[in-house]
């Protein structure tokens, strides 16, 4: 035996806690107190949050008007692409029964427009939009170059399909001449989009900066004429353009269009009364059976008027509480039952070995060479 202990000296594993698998450790166990108190706390929290979210979602005022088909015969007109130069406008009246207090936001909402298609999302050039390299249109298929080979700026399918309806909200004050509700065009994009991701090429005059490129095929005006009055909103920095370029996740989405400017009669929000939308209908949606609408809505701390999150939290909280009560009942019923250990340990059979054998085995057992 001495010989083997000498031979195996060289192959002896280290007597460290790591190698002997005896690192100090915490044995995780699902104890009744831990699980039950966790479930109770989770249930209370989820129910509370759910109720708060439902209440805040209900306090939002929102009004949506779908205008795909009700705008005269504009829908039919736009189905034919050769009618692109014919203007089509309409006015849609509606009535606000309650004042919309606070900040009011105007969105356009599209149904059935898949901005999350794989080739659609790929079809853009971030280096071009950053202004560093206007001619880099490699990833923009199929809208990278025009017929004669000039690169398109901005290139790609996302840019080409920009939403180009104009929506103007007007208010009938004292049922006489309608006045246009003042709206802000700025502040509708993410800060990083406006100041980091999208930059115009450096030049004093934008039309010179964009020389050598051409406008996308579906656009009426080139990119440097999107907003001639405000140079901060022209070229790639145009807010509507930036908002459109941020591809939506689902086929039904709404994008911020304008914010209420709280001056004149609208310092408190939108007062109740008669309003109307004056729409210049340019964006064709009927060919792919989509729809478009305009949405006016207020906001709370939790964002838009979706009841889903509040309901989901309430349901989860209720289910957790139900589980808590049933688990507690089961645990209390089983607590009195004694844990009968039906399997005996083999320790007692050690005693039948002879004294000498036991002495040897216990000493070398402790060595634990393995």
């Amino acid at each position, binding site marked *: 035996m001495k010989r083997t202990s000498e031979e195996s000296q060289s192959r002896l594993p280290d007597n460290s806690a790591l190698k*002997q*698998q*005896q*690192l*100090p*450790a915490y*044995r*995780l*166990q*699902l104890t*009744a107190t831990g*699980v039950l108190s966790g479930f109770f706390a989770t249930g209370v929290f*989820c129910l509370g949050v759910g109720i708060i*979210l439902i209440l805040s979602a209900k306090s939002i005022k929102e009004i949506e008007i779908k205008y795909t088909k009700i705008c005269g015969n504009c829908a039919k007109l736009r189905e034919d692409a050769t009618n692109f130069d014919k203007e089509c406008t309409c006015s849609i009246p509606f009535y606000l029964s309650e004042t919309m207090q606070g900040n009011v*936001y105007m*969105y356009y909402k599209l149904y059935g427009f*898949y*901005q*999350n298609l*794989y080739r659609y999302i790929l079809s853009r050039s*971030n*280096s071009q939009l950053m202004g560093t390299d206007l001619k880099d249109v490699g990833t923009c298929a199929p809208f990278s170059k025009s017929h004669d080979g000039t690169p398109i700026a901005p290139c790609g399918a996302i840019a080409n399909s920009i939403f180009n309806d104009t929506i103007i909200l007007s208010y009938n004050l004292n049922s006489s001449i309608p006045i246009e509700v003042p709206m802000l065009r700025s502040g509708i994009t993410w800060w*990083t989009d406006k100041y*980091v*991701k999208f930059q115009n090429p450096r030049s004093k005059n934008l039309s010179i900066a964009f020389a050598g490129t051409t406008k996308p095929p579906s656009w009426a005006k080139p990119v440097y004429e999107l907003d001639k009055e405000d140079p901060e909103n022209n070229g790639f920095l145009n807010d509507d353009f930036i908002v459109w370029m*941020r591809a*939506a*996740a689902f*086929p039904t989405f709404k994008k911020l269009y304008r914010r209420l400017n709280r001056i004149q009669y609208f310092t408190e929000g939108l007062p109740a009364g008669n309003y109307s939308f004056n729409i210049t209908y340019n964006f064709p949606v009927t060919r792919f059976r989509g729809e478009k609408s305009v949405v006016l809505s207020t*906001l709370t*701390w*939790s*964002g838009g*008027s*979706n009841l*889903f*999150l509040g309901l*989901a*939290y309430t349901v*989860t909280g209720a289910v957790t509480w139900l589980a808590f009560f049933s*688990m507690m009942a*089961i645990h209390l019923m*089983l607590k009195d039952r004694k*844990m*009968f*250990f039906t*399997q005996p*340990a*083999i*320790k007692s*059979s*050690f*005693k*039948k070995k002879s004294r000498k054998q*036991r*002495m040897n085995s216990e*000493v070398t057992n402790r*060595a*634990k060479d*393995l």
Partner: protein
Amino acid sequence: ANDVSMIKSAHIGVGISGQEGLQAVLASDYSFAQFRYLQRLLLVHGRWSYFRMCKFLGYFFYKNFAFTLVHFWFGFFCGFSAQTVYDQWFITLFNIVYTSLPVLAMGIFDQDVSDQNSMDYPQLYEPGQLNLLFNKRQFFICMAHGIYTSLALFFIPYGAFYNVAGEDGQHIADYQSFAVTMATSLVIVVSVQIALDTSYWTVINHVFIWGSIATYFSILFTMHSNGIFGIFPNQFPFVGNVRHSLTQKCIWLVILLTTVASVVPVVIVRFLKMNLCPTLSDQIRQRQKAQKKARPLRSRRPQTRRSSSRRSGYAFAHQEGYGELITSGKNMRAKNPPLTSGLEKTLYNSTSWIENFCKKTTDTVSCFSQDKTVKL
């Protein structure tokens, strides 16, 4: 020499290096010097290895089902155009960086019962023989769990993002925010799941699990920063996302709800299973925990490593002398308190060495009947 073919054809061949040469040792998977080491090899290391491997496999399948099936659900909403829900970088790094180390630590260090208890209760070896811990049924359970998690992971953010705008009215339901929300909730859900699965928490497990989550967030912040967008605008288009999305309260509420919805059913099922039909392993673990509470906490270092007795010398005598006293370890270990259940008393050799000495002869008869239930 005739043992070599036998060893080679076995699932696991064990050779004993001894006086008959080293041929068996060279052909075997495991070899050692004395036949009695086989007991520890099987009951402790073999059993732990099976247990760890099955847990590892189960978790790995679950994690990848949860990760991948989300794309199946998203297909219905993206025109079946195979658009990925996550950022390309996340897909690359998910299995390599964010979730590989915790499960590796679980596969190396996990123990369901201590080694001493594994030796004392060889019945624990049965699940390995009967293929209970990972078979077709367990695989389908993993798959179902992964499918359920992917449903929760996709549809809760989908419903939450359906018609909302952010706190300042701006776009929140865009593709990139959705990707970041899904990725963050996925990493948190699978990390919580591995935290529930790991039953033996060493320092390394802590470091790996919390470190993986921290790594995810730090890589996320790096990839969405302005600096790296400036250098590689086409490779890192997610600039500004983390700053915008993860500062919105409703996104964190979505992530929290997804985690709760994914984890609560698992905890319920495990708790009920442990209470209603506990396995032998569960029972032994509960006893271990109760014993640990009853035993006074001393510094266990010299005891657990047994460094002092490891390379102690051997003493031989013609008469018995005090050999019994020394080998029973009574003067080294604290005395275990007597337990109430009568059955358990016989299972513990906590009585003094004198009683051991006296019981030897009487116990040999009673132990024969118990011996028959032992399977090796």
